[in-house]
């Protein structure tokens, strides 16, 4: 039984982590491509159209990877989490079915037109198809976040005697106080990934003195989008999310911040330190007094509850994992703002392309927004444990009753092998596209 739950969780964690490497770029990049296409329509400058075309090629591969790794996600609710599906289908099925009807059809119908239809449609309609693909992908995010928000902070439901969750208020699913901050935070973070990718490839072209016209444009665009989105990720959206966690999931908040014991007269903010679970404290701690109280409640002396206030069986299952995920996300987010602000300043002074070390930094920064996005999601999901539906349904109660651990391990291994192949193919193909660079075609 323990084994089974472990493999079910590993499979979901592995497949969703791998899956989310792709949609985060899809969502952010679709906005930047639409921006390039729009700039072309306004200026008739072909560089913009060629840029849009270049990024569409990378977008196409990335989108396919997102689709093929996304289908297993919807299936796994039923295959591995059958009890959860049976008991919450009335609520969760609602938002997931809406995602299929409203965003998947939109995306998939217009993606073909967007990728292949430029000549058939003309530039204005082509722009429109791009916009619809962008809209579809952002709506998909909305429905997924609505589903997740309900699991984090259930609203608009009633529990029947047989344990079933039944929807009683449809509107509340979408006015859930958890939803909007989480959605904006997530979308801004996906734009961070896309901005870094665009800026990085710009830096690559400038540094290697190839396709420099495009390189400069990508740099400029990546840095502007990057500075705006990294700022939004931190404030107001990051701040709003932290306050929501403090309000609705106080035990997770304590674990995230590494607070084992409630402190008198205000809580410190921990910058570095390693959770020591045996002695329930942080080793090698470096912290600033009272700042956490102020950030959370705008009061230097407000009380922040420590883990000691909660029953151990309700603690997040993996306190160190949660603590590290959160600190990696916040630490990287802060560095991103610094790097993008510096690059923006240099770009404004017109010396970014000459400041080589910043270009190198941008070039190699690419993996980090991915790490920040993934650890951000780990913070949300490890923070939700040990619950599937916060405070109401434990994770152990949601697994499929008839699927044995041997079968789940079999499919987990299958997914690992298959996804290694996909990842390799993705890197080879995108690497090839980047290497050959944008082409100025006359057509």
């Amino acid at each position, binding site marked *: 039984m323990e084994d089974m739950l472990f493999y079910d969780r590993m499979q979901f964690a592995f497949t969703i982590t791998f899956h989310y490497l792709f949609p985060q770029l899809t969502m952010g990049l679709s906005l930047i491509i639409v921006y390039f296409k729009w700039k072309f329509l306004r200026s008739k400058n072909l560089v913009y159209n060629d840029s849009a075309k270049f990024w569409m090629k990378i977008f196409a591969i990335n989108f396919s990877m997102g*689709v093929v*790794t996304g*289908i297993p996600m919807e299936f796994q609710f039923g295959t591995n989490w059958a009890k959860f*599906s049976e008991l919450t289908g009335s609520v969760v099925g*609602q938002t997931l079915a809406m995602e299929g009807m409203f965003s*998947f059809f939109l995306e998939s*119908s217009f993606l*073909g037109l967007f990728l292949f239809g430029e000549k058939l449609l003309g530039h204005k309609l082509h722009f429109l198809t791009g916009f619809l693909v962008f809209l579809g992908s952002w709506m998909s995010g909305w429905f997924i976040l609505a589903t997740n928000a309900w699991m984090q902070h259930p609203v608009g439901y009633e529990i029947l005697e047989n344990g079933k969750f039944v929807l009683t208020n449809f509107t509340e699913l979408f006015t859930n106080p958890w939803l909007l901050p989480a959605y904006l935070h997530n979308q801004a973070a996906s734009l961070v990934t896309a901005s870094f990718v665009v800026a990085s490839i710009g830096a690559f072209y400038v540094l290697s003195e190839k396709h420099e016209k495009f390189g400069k444009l990508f740099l400029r665009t990546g840095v502007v989008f990057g500075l705006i989105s990294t700022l939004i990720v931190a404030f107001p959206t990051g701040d709003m999310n932290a306050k929501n966690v403090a309000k609705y999931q106080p035990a997770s908040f304590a674990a995230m911040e590494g607070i084992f014991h409630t402190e008198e007269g205000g809580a410190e903010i921990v910058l570095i330190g390693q959770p020591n679970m045996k002695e329930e404290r942080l080793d090698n701690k470096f912290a600033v007094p009272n700042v956490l109280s102020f950030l959370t409640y705008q009061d230097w002396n407000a009380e922040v509850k420590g883990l000691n206030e909660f029953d151990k069986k309700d603690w997040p299952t993996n306190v160190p994992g949660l603590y590290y995920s959160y600190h990696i996300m916040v630490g990287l987010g802060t560095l991103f703002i610094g790097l993008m602000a510096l690059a923006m300043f240099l770009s404004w002074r017109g010396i970014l392309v000459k400041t080589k070390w910043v270009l190198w930094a941008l070039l190699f920064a690419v993996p980090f927004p991915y790490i920040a996005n993934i650890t951000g999601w780990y913070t949300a999901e490890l923070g939700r444990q040990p619950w599937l539906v916060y405070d109401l349904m434990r994770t152990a109660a949601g697994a499929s009753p*008839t699927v044995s651990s041997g079968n789940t391990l079999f499919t987990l291994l*299958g997914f690992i092998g298959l996804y290694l192949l996909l990842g390799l193919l993705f890197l080879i193909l995108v690497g090839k596209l980047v290497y050959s660079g944008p082409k100025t075609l006359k057509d």
Partner: protein
Amino acid sequence: MELFWYSVLIGMLAVYVVFDGYDFGAGIVHLFFAKKEEDKQLITKSIGPFWDANEVWLIAAGGLLFFAFPLLYASAFSGFYLPLMMILWLLIFRAIGLELRGQIHHSMWHAIWDKAFGVSSLLLALFFGLALGNVVRGVNLGGVENGVSSYEATYFFLPLWNSSLDPLAERLGVIDWFTLLLGIIAVISLTIHGANWVILKTNSTLNEQLKKMIFRLNFLLVLFLIASVSTLDIVQPTIFKNYKEYPVLFVFPLMTIVGVAGLFAVKIYKKEIWGFLSSTLFLFGGFTTTAAAMYPVLLPSTNSMNDSLTVYNTITEGYGLSVGLNWFLIGIVLVVLYFIVQHRVFRGKMDAVDYGEH
């Protein structure tokens, strides 16, 4: 309410069979008949802008199943765990075969992805046929052995096969002679359907050969259909009950028969659309014929201890369904609109459409 959502679900699945069916079929045709590079390219071109949206019908139907009949979704998806996972892997292979083929221009690269696309199309057709067979035959709900349920009465787990391949055994497998029969029917019918699509949407040099192939394969199809219908009541004794009570339902088998009959005339049609419409009618009719026979059962129980899963004992509560109805109606209108736009833009033969190898 139950009948409505059942019809919606079956309707969406039937559309899925017809739409994704032609691109699976195109994959099978590609595997067995396309020898020249230009024919291979033409076939993938003919489904290029469509297949992704076609697949969404499956995802959307899955979502709707989750929403309207959560218990069935939970029970069937966990019980058919292994075949579903294999379907997922095949869908992944097929998709990357189609999407990545054009990325590198090298004959070996093309050869790998051509096979990945063709073989996974063939196996998917087989798996979907097997799936239908399993739903008709039923499963051992509750895992009853020697008169004792080993799980909750609404759950089961099926291995891929048992040693006897007998659909009447106590320990069932996904593959037995009956489900295999339906699997083969699925492969044959989708091959025909896909060939009709290729004929309709391309000027490939294969077209004449494919018409002959459809004509011949259709005899085989009739043979297998007769075999399956005559063994149906061995496997599922109550299967004809609905038809005896409501003769109006015979409209569905009638569609099937007209479709098959129409396929025999494939060589004489002046307009190629008639061939495609025939196989469409056959697939739609065949699928709905089965669904009409099953109602209200969604997944029959093969033991006498536990009840079958039906629309009544798996449907979600009233409030959720009634709000669902509102957004579903808006959604389906939009979906139809998208499909019209998509098929208008890429109308006619696809040979000259340059949506290119990027």
